[in-house]
């Protein structure tokens, strides 16, 4: 059994003023400090990136770690954020390494904006069938899938809006969050169009920052400073692409295939999840995953959110930190760290009382054809 023994953050800003290498080192050291460890205890480093950050082969030497027993530099977007921690857990379970720090450092506002300025179009053969039509960026792609869901199931703008409002309310209780001023449904509806049906408040923030988690054995974690959080299940897989979809249905994500494996590994089901930190690059991403992870019936994600089910005092609090929409965008790792915080019971004003089981998910496979997820448990 493996566990997460510590979490660490840099501040979330619009301009860090430092390199991603510096951000990565700061987050790694902060996570080690949280666990009561030092860099001398580290024998593994892992990250995911899309050519926009510092790999373990730079972060290791920068911290004086010249003989890492295991490292992983995973190319990929948010689809693989949780797979990185899963693979670190495998390395620890296999005895290849004892203490692996998984991090993501990103200057996503001041340097390389996702799908925006500062970088070229991705090197994928699928791009030639999209970019000539001015169709290149994640908000466009997600808006396209969101409308397909609206047309098929009657999902409404107000459903997306409820989610944005709920997550902002959570962020208001999170000192780390970039956006803490509460918003109303009217504010949502009045925000400017980005790519219809998406408005500005459907879209995640662009953030400079870093976040890290320490993966080690459950046994060792129990001897450290913080209450350990067990990695109860880690799964990855599924797949779609922009040019095809599972069962030819663009309203079904890779999570639908992955979820049964994930729950079986943990020996529990969606009804056992106390808190869910769900990849929210856009509002719709949460709504479709609530369906595909089995919290409501297919097509009911919008009404489920609008019922208040995902609010802090609802049956399934979702994105208690505010998520990418309001806390900041650290490409999935801040969702894992928030799940850890909730299970340790140190989430402050936004603590879900008695949370024992948390689900945290990656990008559900619309952009890169794969997804990944973790189920974490209080020890």
């Amino acid at each position, binding site marked *: 059994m493996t566990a997460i023994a510590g979490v660490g953050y840099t501040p979330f800003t619009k301009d860090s003023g430092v390199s991603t290498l510096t951000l990565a080192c700061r987050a790694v050291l902060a996570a080690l400090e949280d666990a009561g460890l030092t860099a001398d205890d580290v024998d593994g480093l892992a990250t995911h990136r899309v050519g926009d950050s510092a790999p373990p082969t730079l972060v290791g030497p920068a911290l004086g770690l010249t003989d890492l027993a295991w490292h992983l530099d995973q190319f990929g977007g948010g689809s693989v954020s949780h797979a990185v921690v899963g693979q670190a857990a495998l390395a620890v379970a296999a005895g290849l390494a004892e203490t692996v720090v998984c991090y993501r450092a990103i200057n996503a506002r001041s340097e390389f904006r996702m799908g925006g300025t500062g970088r070229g179009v991705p090197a994928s053969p*699928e*791009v030639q069938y*999209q970019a000539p*039509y*001015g169709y290149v960026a994640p908000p*466009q792609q997600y808006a396209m899938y969101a409308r397909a869901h609206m047309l098929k199931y009657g999902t409404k703008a107000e459903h997306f809006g409820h989610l944005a409002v709920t997550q902002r309310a959570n962020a208001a209780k999170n000192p780390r969050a970039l956006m803490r001023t509460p918003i109303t449904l009217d504010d949502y509806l009045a925000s*400017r169009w980005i790519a*219809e049906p998406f408005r500005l408040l459907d879209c995640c923030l662009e953030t400079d920052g870093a976040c890290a988690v320490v993966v080690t054995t459950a046994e060792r974690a129990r001897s450290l400073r913080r209450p350990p959080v067990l990695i109860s299940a880690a799964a990855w897989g599924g797949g779609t692409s*922009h040019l095809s979809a599972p069962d*030819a249905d663009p309203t079904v994500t890779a999570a639908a295939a992955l979820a049964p494996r994930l729950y079986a590994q943990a020996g529990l089901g969606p009804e056992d999840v106390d808190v869910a930190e769900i990849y929210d690059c856009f509002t719709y991403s949460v709504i479709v995953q609530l369906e595909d992870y089995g919290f409501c019936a297919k097509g009911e994600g919008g009404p489920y959110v609008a019922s208040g089910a995902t609010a802090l005092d609802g049956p399934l609090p979702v994105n208690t930190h505010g998520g990418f929409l309001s806390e900041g965008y650290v490409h999935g790792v801040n969702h894992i760290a928030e799940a850890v915080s909730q299970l340790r019971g140190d989430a402050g004003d936004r603590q879900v009382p008695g949370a024992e089981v948390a689900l945290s998910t990656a990008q559900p496979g619309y952009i890169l054809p794969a997804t990944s997820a973790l189920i974490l448990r209080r020890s």
Partner: protein
Amino acid sequence: MAYRPEPDRDSREWWERIARHEFAVQRCDICGTTRFPARAFCPACRSEAWHWQDVEPEGRVESWIVNHQAFVPGRRQPYVVVMVRLAAVPGCLVYGNWHGERPPEPGERVRASFDRIDETLTLVNWTPAGSLDPHPHQRTSFR
């Protein structure tokens, strides 16, 4: 032109056919499954044997977006991108700009519009199947 497609070794011939206003998909020689975009293996039976098959350049509107900012340089906003389910390959979703005087309708039948950019490049956009494109030279917000 903001972005020029870069054909690869699998797709080059498809683009050459499009430049001749021929709309083709691959059909597996072994199991008959059609596929798009071009690639070597049949995902149904894993055969590498295939041939091009001309098909009607038709489909149905699965979704669309109205872009209100310049996601690529040189675009005039707003512009519409449609997601079209190809009639010839039902599991396949393709994209293009919308050539219509009105917004698309869900499930609407559409036909390809072959829009010549220059000698070697033609792009496929989509127009309502019930109408001929009234302004074939006014490529919607293409430049």
